């Protein structure tokens, strides 16, 4: 692709013309604040916190929604910009509960970060505030629009990434708020409970009910692993507190999922700590299944396979693998069937 050269805060930056100013700046290590931006979706340009000065442009431009052009000269941190950003944060806080102490998203909230960065303790513009009732109309997702900053991220991720389109804004102006059609509960919409809206909401307006009250971001250890559910192999972070998984998230723009998860990957972790879960192999002895070591169990399987092969040839053996294995594991299984045992009798449950 062709290259463009621009200057951001005195730094010469070379990038490609498909980049926005925000992306180009971040690549160059220059941080421009953002709120309604999530790289998984198209830019929206709503919060205005990312506005920058571009020489020759009429007025200030949102860095998240403006593509770079050759020769552009950008300033991201002037006195005026800082003043305006502060006003924006103060306006947001003038209609936002100041209950960070107990908010589920404290420590994981982009509004909190902005208030911290701009040193906003109190707003100069107090006035009417919204008080919506929190909606917990299903077992997984709670929505409390009292904390909503109207960034539209939930609306857009559901429509653009999930292709579902559960939400849109309703009402105008100060009364605008995201909602479902006719304010129906999520269970009466096409919602798939993927929790993508939870993952993108920058504040505590949409949260996961199973994680509620279980721990703060700084109290958990994040363990990167691969989702055990399907062959896609999305990367997930298990949030572990005192040996218990309290939440699952996905690192943005990493691995095949690029930060997106489905309902199973995000919410299907209860089995891990379930008392009925098998934690050792079982071997049938005298008609009873009894716990065994991996060595014993695998040895027994190998022995039986060999016996069948000796008796009736390799095609007497068939392999069926699981959709819950990773692609690599499935690959290894067919390798075992074809190269070690010598049969093409290999199949997979997801093909049925």
């Amino acid at each position, binding site marked *: 692709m062709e290259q463009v050269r621009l200057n951001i805060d005195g730094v010469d930056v070379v990038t490609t013309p498909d980049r926005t100013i925000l992306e180009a700046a971040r690549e160059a290590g220059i941080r421009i604040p953002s709120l309604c931006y999530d790289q998984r979706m198209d*830019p*929206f*340009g*709503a*919060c*205005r*916190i990312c*506005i920058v000065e571009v020489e020759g442009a009429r*007025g*200030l*431009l*949102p860095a998240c*929604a*403006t*593509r770079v052009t050759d020769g552009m000269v950008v300033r991201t941190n002037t006195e*005026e910009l800082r*003043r*305006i950003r502060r*006003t*924006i944060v103060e*306006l*947001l806080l*003038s*209609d936002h509960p100041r209950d960070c102490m107990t908010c589920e998203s404290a420590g994981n909230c982009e509004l909190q970060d902005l208030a911290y960065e701009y040193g906003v303790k109190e707003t*100069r*513009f107090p*006035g*009417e505030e919204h008080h919506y009732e929190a909606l917990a109309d299903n077992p997984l997702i709670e929505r409390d629009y009292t904390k909503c*900053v*109207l960034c*539209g991220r939930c609306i857009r991720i559901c429509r653009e990434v999930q292709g579902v389109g559960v939400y*849109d*804004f309703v*009402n*105008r*102006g*100060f*009364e*605008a708020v995201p909602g479902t059609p006719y304010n129906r509960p999520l269970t009466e919409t096409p919602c798939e409970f993927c929790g993508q809206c939870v993952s993108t909401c920058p504040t505590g307006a949409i949260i996961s009910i199973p994680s509620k009250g279980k721990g703060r971001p700084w109290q958990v250890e994040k363990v990167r692993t691969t989702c055990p559910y399907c062959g896609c192999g999305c990367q997930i972070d298990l949030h572990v507190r005192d040996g218990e998984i309290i939440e699952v998230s996905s690192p943005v723009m990493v691995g095949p999922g690029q930060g997106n998860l489905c309902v199973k990957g995000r919410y299907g972790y209860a089995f891990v700590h379930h008392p009925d879960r098998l934690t050792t192999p079982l071997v049938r002895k005298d008609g009873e299944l009894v716990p065994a070591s991996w060595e014993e169990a695998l040895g027994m399987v190998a022995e039986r396979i060999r016996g069948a092969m000796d008796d009736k040839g390799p095609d007497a053996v068939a392999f069926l693998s699981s959709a819950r294995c990773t692609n690599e594991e499935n690959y290894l299984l067919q390798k075992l069937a074809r190269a070690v045992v010598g049969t093409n009798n290999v199949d997979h449950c997801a093909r049925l």
Partner: protein
Amino acid sequence: MSGNGRTKLVLGYGTCGIAAGAAAVKEALEREVSAGGYDLDLDIAGCMGFCFREPIVEVFYPDGKSVVYGDLNPKKVPQLLQAAASGEVLEDWVVRRSDDTAAGEGDFLANQHRIVLRNCGNINPESIDEYIAVGGYEAARKALTNMTPEEVIDEVSRSGLRGRGGAGFPTGTKWGFARKARGDQKYLVCNADEGDPGAFMDRSVLEGDPHAVIEGMIIAGYAIGATQGYIYCRAEYPLALKRLEIAITACRERGFLGERIFGTDWNFDIKIKKGAGAFVCGEETALIASIEGKRGMPRPRPPFPANEGLWGKPTNINNVETLAAVSWIIANGGDKYAELGTEKSKGTKVFCLAGKVRRSGLAEVPMGYTLRQVIFDVGGGVREGKEFKAVQLGGPSGGCLPASLLDTPVDYEAITATGAIMGSGGMIVADSSTCMVDLARYFLSFTQAESCGKCVPCRLGTKRMLEILTRICEGKGEPEDLERLEVLAADIKAASLCALGGTAPNPVLTTLKYFRNEYEDHIFNRKCTAGVCPALITVKINQDICTGCGACARICPVEAISGEKKEPHSIDPDTCIRCKLCLSRCPEEAIYAE
């Protein structure tokens, strides 16, 4: 017009006329003409601009002269018909005489220069033949058969025409962008959303001369290479929509719209899209979203519609008035249009005169006229001979200018320099009985309510400004409020996504600039000098004038007024709710608010 040797009566039948009672007059005319066996023709036309004298009828005599009568009602119809048939002129009812511009309100029209409104009130808007008879569709024919698209764009560029939807962007340049944009399909959109209160020029043009707009669209479509046009018109304009539909059907029958129009191999057709009446849907990117069936919310530009517009295709959006001027420009030449106006603002502009002006209505004047000329020479000055105080220019997003700026010319740059905007051309005149804080509060309450809610500065900023203005009007203003207003106004203007938020603070900024003392009076002296804000006034009876007739006491809804018969009365300030009903009731004008 009257060309067949008969006298013809033309009834103003736009929304303004109908609202004033033209439907009853129409019925009476039809009934009385047949009952009296009059040898007269009847016809309708759109608004002539004399909204302040509706319902009106223009009588055209066979000798070419005509007389406009106003303030008609069904009872006056028999007398009107008799006079029309006999050739007598009813002097008392005259609004305008073609043979005597000094008569009636003649100088209202005499001081105008009508290009966009050339046919409004003169032809039947439901008849394509009447439009053709005055030279209609010759410009479109000429463009399509004799000119290349580039030549059309050149002609429009030469005219100096700038978009009349508010921003004043040069029309020829904009067409050039759309022409150059690459795309297998391009669109042309006519913006007929007209959402600002006090603006009704687009409605009047659509009701009075829909073909002028359609002809402009055909020309624009050809120039930029768009084969499909849309008219985005608010559903609250049923008469405009009806007349557009009639006009579009007639055009298809004549081969002016559809395939191979005007006998060429060019195709162009028009669809009407009804808007649901959101002010923000007049903003071009919100309008596009609305046509696409999405929520009407603006998006950041670039990309501009010229490159990525409707359904992602190159799209050109023009205002009704812009397009109506285009057909005149192609017919008469860009140079002719450019003869009018100032260096950078050419041609004419239609203004909607409203508020405390004597003649409220539509006025089209050459650019460069001063505000004083428009308000006083055309508009007849302030009503009831009161003193001029201010004019709100450019609708609710515009600015409020004091008398000292009355010599500002009508010119995009000159008006912007004052802090107001040309906008769509609303002119709301205020007299000494208007409180400027209350006026700013009123305009901001409109933009605040119409904010789409997408961006933070506009959604929350205008709300907070309105709250501050409201408390100032309620006598609860705080000393820091002026600074808060200024900070918010500046940051909303600088940071809003679209021009709704970008211009919403203008009424506050201009009143703060030109009428700051009124704000200070409200905040520091708890006084509303104009006697408007209920919390800050006391209603009093002048004891020297009051005759004790008791009329005021009888109308007071809270019985705050007492006094002996024939003795001066007085008002209990604790009971009085400051509704000011008593003020107009007093025959001696003894009651006042301060």
